[in-house]
């Protein structure tokens, strides 16, 4: 897909992966998340928990929201909290933080696309992980939602987190840019 | 009333019918309570129907 790519980012920093469609932004994120096996090269995290791999210390927010329509909003979130494990918080405050407090017990099927996105952002809050891999985090979000997303990202950075975000719209947050070339 | 040599079959079939009918009745009654309860919760939460009537109005 691509080669000759060398980048690094540090705690408290956003790496914005930009570039035209098809330039491999998503593939890069999935490589870091361990969902794709690199043909060559290496990806590593310095510091952090030594027994855990990079994917195990990362949150991945993909195009798809990883929600089950048959389960309620709270059930969806508490499942991911229990499954991802580690340092976890309470479901209620996280839902309030993303503006879904009123929908806690509703089936996720009734949520709009933007609300589903908010619910997957709540997943980043309920389990603490140092590295966030965000693929178009603000897509489907309205203005208030984008503001909320930026606020959540700022808080994460302030607590020493790392964010790698693939995007073509400006994130609204100060970021180091990694420009992916067009084509191969 | 004597039920003859096959009393157990007769008693079983009557009690099965009673049991299933009872289950139906209980299920419908519980379902009714549950829906009413949910509608009351909505009313308490201030959510109203489009027509502006209360949720539990009939």
């Amino acid at each position, binding site marked *: 897909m691509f080669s000759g790519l060398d980048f690094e980012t540090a705690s408290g920093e956003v790496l914005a992966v930009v570039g035209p469609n098809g330039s491999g932004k998503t593939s890069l994120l999935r490589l870091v*998340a*361990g*969902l794709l096996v690199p043909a060559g090269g290496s990806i590593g995290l310095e510091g952090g928990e030594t027994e855990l791999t990079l994917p195990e210390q990362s949150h991945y927010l993909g195009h*798809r929201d990883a929600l*089950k329509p048959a389960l309620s909003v709270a059930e969806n979130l508490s*499942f991911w909290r229990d*499954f991802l494990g*580690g340092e976890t918080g309470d479901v209620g405050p996280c839902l309030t933080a993303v503006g879904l407090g009123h929908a806690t017990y509703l089936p996720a099927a009734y949520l709009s696309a933007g609300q589903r996105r908010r619910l997957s952002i709540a997943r980043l809050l309920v389990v603490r992980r140092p590295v966030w891999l965000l693929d178009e985090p603000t897509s489907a979000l309205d203005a208030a939602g984008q503001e909320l997303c930026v606020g959540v990202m700022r808080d994460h950075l302030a607590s020493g987190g790392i964010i790698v975000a693939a995007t073509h719209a400006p994130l609204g947050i100060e970021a180091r840019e990694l420009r992916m070339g067009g084509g191969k | 009333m004597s039920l003859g040599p096959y009393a157990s079959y007769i008693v079983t079939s009557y009690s099965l019918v009673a049991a299933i009918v009872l289950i139906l009745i209980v299920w419908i009654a519980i379902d009714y309570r549950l829906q009413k309860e949910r509608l009351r919760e909505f009313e308490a939460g201030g959510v109203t129907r489009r027509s502006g009537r209360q949720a539990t109005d009939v």
Partner: protein
Amino acid sequence: MTAITALIRRDIKIALRVGGGALIGVLFFLTVTVLMPFAIGPDLALLTRLGPAILWLGALLASLLTLDRLFTADHEDGSLDLIVMGQTPLELACAAKALAHWLAAGVPLIVATPMLGLLLNLDGEATSAVALTLLVGTPALTFTGMIGAALAVTLHRGGLLLAVLVLPLSIPVLIFGVSASQAAITGPLAFGTPFSILCALSLVSLVVGPFAAAASLRHGLD
């Protein structure tokens, strides 16, 4: 451990709620079994003889029918990515999903067996023999079927391809399941011999299934 129980509980909940497929499997089992006599004929003696085979075939088809959504549903909504990334080993997560599937879709098949045994003119002993072999054998079907379900995700083809891939793999289970039930009804073989082989097959699939499924998922995600 909480991760595993959370996954099992979630899958069972989804299977039992609106849109879930758990009970459709039983319905399919019922229908297939009821259709058989129409093809074979209403001869009760013949049905008694064929009963265990009919029940086993029905259970085999029913458990395969519901398996194809095991991983595809999670793949389509992105959950599978997160499951792969989790701290839980993927093998364990696969085993948990298969266990949940068996609890929601396999156990009802065994519960329905006595009623179907009645329809096929099996006596109490024969029915319990079939139910026992199904109890031991259906986990093997689920855990080998899981390999097919994982392949179906990576190949972007579900349904029929899964059946074609998995049915040959389940031949041994079918052979020993049916012969154990037959042995319990008519002899001349002892029930214990085929039954212990069936148990062994189940145990092997319990080990091999999760590893094969996890391997194929790991290399097949894109």
